[in-house]
């Protein structure tokens, strides 16, 4: 059997629906740990409400947040996968079908940036990026619905031959600018280096990394650990009403570049919407999260 349009279609619509209804396990575990360690009583209660809301959504099969965001998919194609599918149009069809059938219905969040008109469809929607996985015999799709609440606070700056001090100061200042407003505790994804476009992509992908999984290189893992403590020391806390827990994780990705060094920062709010499925070459769809 071969991976065909219908498999991509099925995975696309299911992934979006899952992401809206279920807070990932790593995120729930991180919220529960924060609830234990918080010294601020209001913050502990807020974390408790977050966990209650996540559980209520899962049990009742409802959305955690009313803002379903816009559909964002990352497609990773195994170079040894057996596939014959129009992946892009299958994803578009999958999302269109989801909009028509999902219960309860979605609010209209897809926005034309020039007219501010809102609907379910729009130019270049869903937003899809494609990558290859060497030697893999499957296609993996990650869905990360994205909304204004935390999406609005992403930022990027271009430096020339910056020191680590310059880079870390910038990242801290982006966290200060977001302040109370991005539905903390957040996952903070950072991209350093590469080019303008690649850096933003690295930051976004860093938000998708499992919480508690440090970067494999010590230099980067150390940076993640000290930035995690630095941002939490700011004191914004859960929902930005004060506390020790403003981030659940700081994830840094980097790439070599020229002397100009982009630094990008992206946030995922506490519900950390992320779902992932693997489509095997026999057409079987395996839900990974």
């Amino acid at each position: 059997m071969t991976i065909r349009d219908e498999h991509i279609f099925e995975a696309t619509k299911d992934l979006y629906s899952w992401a809206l209804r279920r807070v990932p396990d790593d995120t729930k575990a991180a919220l529960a740990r924060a609830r234990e360690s918080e010294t601020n009583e209001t913050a502990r209660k807020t974390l408790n409400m977050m966990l209650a809301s996540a559980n209520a959504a899962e049990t009742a099969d409802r959305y955690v947040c009313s803002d379903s965001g816009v559909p964002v998919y990352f497609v990773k194609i195994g170079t040894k996968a057996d596939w014959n599918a129009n992946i892009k149009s299958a994803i578009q069809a999958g999302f269109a079908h989801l909009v028509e059938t999902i219960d309860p219905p979605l609010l209209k969040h897809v926005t034309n940036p020039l007219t501010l008109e809102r609907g379910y469809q729009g130019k270049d929607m869903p937003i899809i990026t494609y990558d290859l996985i060497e030697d893999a015999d499957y296609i993996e799709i990650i869905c990360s619905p994205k909304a204004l609440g935390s999406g609005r606070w992403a930022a990027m700056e271009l430096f020339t031959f910056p020191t680590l001090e310059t880079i870390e100061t910038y990242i801290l200042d982006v966290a200060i600018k977001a302040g109370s407003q991005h539905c903390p505790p957040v996952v903070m994804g950072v991209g350093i280096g590469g080019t303008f476009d690649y850096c933003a992509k690295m930051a976004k992908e860093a938000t998708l990394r499992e919480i508690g999984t440090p970067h494999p290189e010590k230099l980067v893992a150390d940076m993640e650990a000290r930035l995690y403590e630095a941002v939490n020391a700011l004191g914004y806390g859960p929902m930005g009403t004060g506390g020790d827990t403003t981030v659940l994780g700081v994830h840094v990705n980097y790439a070599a570049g020229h002397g100009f060094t982009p630094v990008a920062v992206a946030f995922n709010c506490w519900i950390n919407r992320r779902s992932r499925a693997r489509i095997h070459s026999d057409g079987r769809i395996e839900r990974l999260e």
Partner: protein
Amino acid sequence: MRTITLPASREDVASLELGEMVTLTGPIVVTAGIPTHHRIIEHIRSSTPTPIALNDTAFFHLGSYSRETENGFEILYMNPTTSTRFNALMPEIIRHFNLRCVGGKGGLDDECARALRDVGGVYLSFLGGGAPILSAAIRKIRHVAWDDFISHYRLVELEVEALGPLTVAIDARGNSLYRNLDDGAAQKRAAILEQLAQRRTTGQ
């Protein structure tokens, strides 16, 4: 935890402390739309009544999915949106309607806090991502106005029971958790950067 019965008395609102959590029971008005706020302001400036009376009400930045059925409108879910988007529009609305309670998520700025102080109102922080909990508090849909707007931009009056818990984030004296936290972060910034520098040199 206190339950505030709406419409809230001036005394009840004045007694709320920063960081305190409360639940609300009674009528509220909600919207998540910038165009809605613009239209409210048009009504203020042309001295035309809004379709839902806003004087002394609890007015929240909550988006809701409303749809019309044979028995009138139903609300399928609701959840807060970022209030700071309405910073420029809220002071006039707060002052004109003497809003007793406003709220949403992410807070409002200093000018809005001054407006709340002037009318003796508070800002209540809702749980973002709290749709299942918040939607369960809806008891009745009183009025869905301006249904020419998309669902979450409509002006909706609901009756709720034990809505929350909500955190008092700006009190009736104009004190703001958001201002305090921003000032605190600005004060701590130098020490945090120093700590980062030390950890870089010790290889941590």
